[in-house]
């Protein structure tokens, strides 16, 4: 008998390669929250030499520093600031909203504000939409960036 093993979501998340669409939606929602707080103006994506993807959130001019870098390494998502500080690490990007880093510096304060805003937007719309929709999380993931920009 031939067994064909289909890749699970976790299998896809464990290897190098570019960001998946669902990951990018989560990351763009985080970015939108930063924009709302005035802590970011743009983002960029890149990769390490091993092919692990990175997502950079960049502060507005005149000081366009990277305020947040999310990297996927194996099954972990590493969240770092622009000077090498590890803010947190999670196994699911959705957990990022629940991780409230110890606020030690202005840079981390911006990160925490962005994450908190993202969580607030998600929570608010989750409550309103859940009663009406069968797949609330999917909807929220799709519309969160636009909604965050409007709040």
């Amino acid at each position, binding site marked *: 008998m031939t067994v064909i093993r289909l890749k699970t979501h976790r299998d896809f998340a464990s290897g190098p390669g570019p960001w998946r669409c669902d990951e990018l939606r989560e990351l763009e929602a985080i970015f939108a929250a930063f924009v709302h707080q005035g802590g970011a103006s743009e*983002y960029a994506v*890149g990769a*390490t030499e091993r092919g*692990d993807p990175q997502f950079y959130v*960049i502060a507005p001019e005149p000081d366009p520093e990277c305020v947040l870098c999310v990297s996927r390494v194996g099954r972990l998502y590493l969240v770092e600031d622009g*000077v*090498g500080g590890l803010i947190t690490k999670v196994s699911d990007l959705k957990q990022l909203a629940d991780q409230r880093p110890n606020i030690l510096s202005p840079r981390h304060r911006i990160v925490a504000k962005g994450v908190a805003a993202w969580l607030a937007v998600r929570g608010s719309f989750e409550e309103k939409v859940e009663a009406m929709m069968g797949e609330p999380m999917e909807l929220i993931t799709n519309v969160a960036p636009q909604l965050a920009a409007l709040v």
Partner: protein
Amino acid sequence: MTGSTHFARAAPEAKRLRKAAGDWLKGLRGRADLSQVELAKRLGFKYYTFVSQVENGFGRVPTESMEAWALALGQEPAAFARQLLSYYDPELHRLLFKGKR
């Protein structure tokens, strides 16, 4: 395999300089025959991702660790810091080292 980046918008001068710094550091690492992981280990990092972040032009070598980076890359710390300053703060570099390279 080299790292890669894609800006969502056009990069102004500060970003161009940060990218140039990253390229310069990547070149030094290549000449030292080190991978990003190996350099990160030499610097005592648990993860190597910050090395990539810096080389891609989205992070900066903190002042307090410039000496460690220089030594890890086989460079003389003062010259290394001076070159980085020319990327990170070109105006200060001009004031301090006007006429010098």
